């Protein structure tokens, strides 16, 4: 049995997008939500079917399910459109469609009665389509195109409340930052295709391709290293890696389900997916680039975790947590080798991606549920919500335990593998990773205790539990957060396609779990009930605390650089040049044209007879010249 039906996984969401987009404002009631949900539901079903069929067959070879030529440059170089099925793309299909389906269902409750309901589901469908297209891309160029589509849908959804200036600014910020990163990606693609003559992942990642005669060097590094670094830059932009992370916290201006889908579970892991997709190439051709990946991942995970400890906006805490977790994944990819036990990091990274999608989506949906109830994002104005929202409370607790890495929840298994991989290669990274595990547990439970326990704040109206349509997806994700870790992930996904025997490194696990428990304990002490201790401790950190609270002033730094340096020293001279040299040149041309036309405008007198006179004279002259030529 073939895999041709997988094309429907992509077609259904785009059909939903077209219907909802064209019918925006005209569709009756909540039909647009159902159209989108049913479409993505069928996509999800087909994804599961694909997964069962693929993994059930036992072979982990790449399969091109669908392929058409889209652009043909010459005999060698052409751009295809198609669907590539291999373990990681199928894993991504499952993750994306599952989380999407949950978010779509949840959104029907969350967005009820909002203005632009149709538009919202149109954009969500577009996003699902783009993301699915991205993961099944058969070549770099298709990836790039869907990559941009994903960026566009993200932009549209962040700016969904376009009458809110903050949302507009955030959407622009996200778009500009990721575009900047994508420029690197595009250059990387061009370099790779120039040297290898292909865009195809199939060729690029084949072990034989590792002997591609790529000998050119640039600034001491091989061009392939540069190219892959540039590709990673694109990935870092999408995945909000330091220093291109600044857009993600602001992106929380979008509707919360959007944050859950795009900025937690799917789009932001596209960078990880991209590196994983090209992992054999990275590993063999550019180990240096992998070093960079590992370093950036490690730095980001620590950096984001520190900031997360200080924030008060519930969604921003989760956003920084996301950055931190993606940093984990990058770190794992960076320390991984190719093949066999060496490839543990690769498996771990994708495993974490898998589990993270569940509990982070759950966290965001929980946050959405909370915000839905209390109408604020600030955790200082929340407290004691466990009484009002028992279901959300339980599910949020599960997600927190999962992300903190407490067995037997999902996060424990994947995090343990990452730490084990880091431990085996780079001890420094291992120490950072373990530290971050503790920090993660701390800030997540800080959030948890403040929101659900803490002081009981007086609300203007009593918070209530969310409707079933919102809690049901959360429950399903909750189940996923519990059991996802039990999947024998290594036997399905490994760097070289040979099943990897997963086992738990007890030393590493014990240390990280102990640290996590310590973090939880501290959070419990500080925030279970209202106390002055956090205040005092933050005081004692002084400048460090304040800078962490301000996200280490990165936004300000960027503004300073763009305004102070780029605008003043680059843009202004360029503008001057444009106005006074290029425009002057144009004006000169215009003036010449003007002058010439004023000289010859007599020919266009509007006098019919003059025209006819000239016309007939011309005919006679042509006739004469023919006669002369035929003599």
């Amino acid at each position: 049995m073939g895999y041709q039906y997988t094309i429907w996984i992509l077609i259904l969401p785009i059909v939903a997008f077209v219907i909802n987009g064209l019918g925006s404002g005209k569709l009756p009631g909540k039909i647009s939500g159902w159209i989108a949900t049913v479409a993505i539901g069928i996509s999800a079903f087909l994804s599961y079917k694909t997964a069962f069929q693929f993994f059930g067959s036992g072979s982990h070879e790449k399969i091109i399910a669908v392929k058409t030529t889209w652009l043909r440059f010459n005999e060698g170089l052409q751009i295809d459109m198609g669907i590539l099925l291999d373990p990681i793309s199928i894993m991504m299909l499952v993750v994306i469609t599952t989380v999407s389906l949950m978010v779509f269902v949840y959104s029907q409750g969350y967005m009820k009665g909002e203005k632009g309901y149709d538009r919202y589901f149109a954009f969500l469908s577009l996003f699902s389509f783009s993301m699915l297209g991205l993961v099944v891309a058969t070549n770099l160029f298709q990836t790039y195109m869907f990559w941009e589509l994903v960026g566009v849908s993200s932009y549209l959804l962040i700016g969904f409340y376009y009458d809110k200036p903050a949302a507009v600014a955030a959407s622009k910020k996200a778009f500009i930052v990721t575009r900047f990163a994508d420029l690197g990606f595009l250059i990387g693609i061009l370099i790779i295709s120039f040297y290898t003559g292909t865009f195809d992942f199939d060729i690029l990642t084949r072990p034989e391709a590792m002997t591609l005669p790529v000998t050119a060097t640039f600034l001491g590094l091989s061009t392939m290293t540069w190219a892959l670094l540039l590709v990673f830059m694109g990935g870092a932009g999408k995945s909000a890696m330091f220093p291109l992370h600044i857009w993600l916290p602001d992106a929380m201006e979008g509707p919360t389900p959007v944050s859950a889908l795009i900025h937690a579970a799917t789009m932001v892991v596209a960078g990880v997916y991209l590196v994983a997709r090209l992992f054999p190439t990275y590993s063999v051709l550019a180990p240096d680039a992998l070093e960079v990946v590992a370093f950036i991942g490690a730095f980001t995970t620590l950096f984001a975790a520190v900031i997360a400890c200080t924030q008060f906006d519930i969604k921003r805490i989760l956003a920084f947590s996301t950055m931190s977790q993606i940093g984990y994944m990058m770190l794992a990819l960076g320390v991984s080798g190719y093949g066999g036990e060496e490839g543990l990091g690769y498996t771990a990274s994708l495993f974490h991606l898998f589990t993270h999608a569940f509990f982070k989506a759950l966290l965001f949906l929980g946050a959405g549920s909370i915000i839905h109830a209390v109408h604020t994002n600030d955790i200082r104005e929340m407290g004691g919500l466990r009484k009002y929202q028992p279901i959300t409370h339980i599910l949020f607790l599960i997600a927190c335990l999962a992300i903190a890495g407490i067995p037997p929840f999902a996060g424990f298994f994947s995090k343990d593998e990452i730490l084990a991989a880091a431990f085996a290669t780079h001890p420094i990274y291992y120490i950072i990773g373990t530290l971050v595990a503790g920090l993660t547990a701390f800030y997540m439970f800080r959030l948890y205790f403040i929101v659900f326990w803490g002081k009981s704040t007086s609300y203007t109206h009593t918070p209530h539990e969310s409707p079933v349509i919102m809690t049901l997806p959360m429950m399903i994700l909750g189940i996923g957060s519990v059991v996802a870790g039990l999947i024998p992930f290594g036997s399905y996904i490994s760097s070289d396609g040979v099943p990897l025997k997963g086992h738990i490194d007890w030393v590493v696990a014990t240390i990280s779990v102990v640290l996590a428990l310590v973090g939880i304990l501290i959070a419990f002490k500080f925030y279970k009930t209202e106390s002055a201790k956090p205040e005092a401790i933050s005081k004692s950190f002084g400048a460090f605390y304040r800078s962490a609270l301000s996200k280490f002033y990165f936004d300000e730094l960027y503004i300073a650089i763009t305004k102070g340096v780029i605008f003043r020293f680059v843009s202004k001279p360029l503008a001057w040049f444009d106005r006074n040299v290029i425009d002057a040149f144009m004006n000169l041309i215009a003036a010449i044209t003007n002058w010439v036309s004023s000289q010859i405008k007599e020919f266009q007198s509007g006098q019919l007879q003059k025209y006819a006179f000239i016309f007939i004279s011309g005919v006679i002259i042509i006739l004469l010249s023919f006669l002369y030529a035929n003599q």
Partner: protein
Amino acid sequence: MIESVPLNQVLIVTTLMFFIGVYGFLTRKNLITMLISVELMLNAVNLNFVFFDRYLFPGKLEGHFFSLFIIAIAAAEAAVAIAIFINLYRNIRSINVEDVNEMKN
């Protein structure tokens, strides 16, 4: 007539007629007289078609039908042209070609 008058001579007639039409078209200022000149030119062309058809390709009738269709089109053209002239006269009280410059400036 075909036997007694050579083609060259009949073509001289049509040539003269055509260029008389050209002369009229270029010198006349009244739009109706310009239309008259155009009709003269069309007529000369029709004659040419008929003569070539009759002298050089007897029995083919191609020039005949060309002339027929030209006459039909000339009728359409004249009808529309005169409708325009009358409307023009109603609006600017003149059908002088040099007065038709309302759209200019």
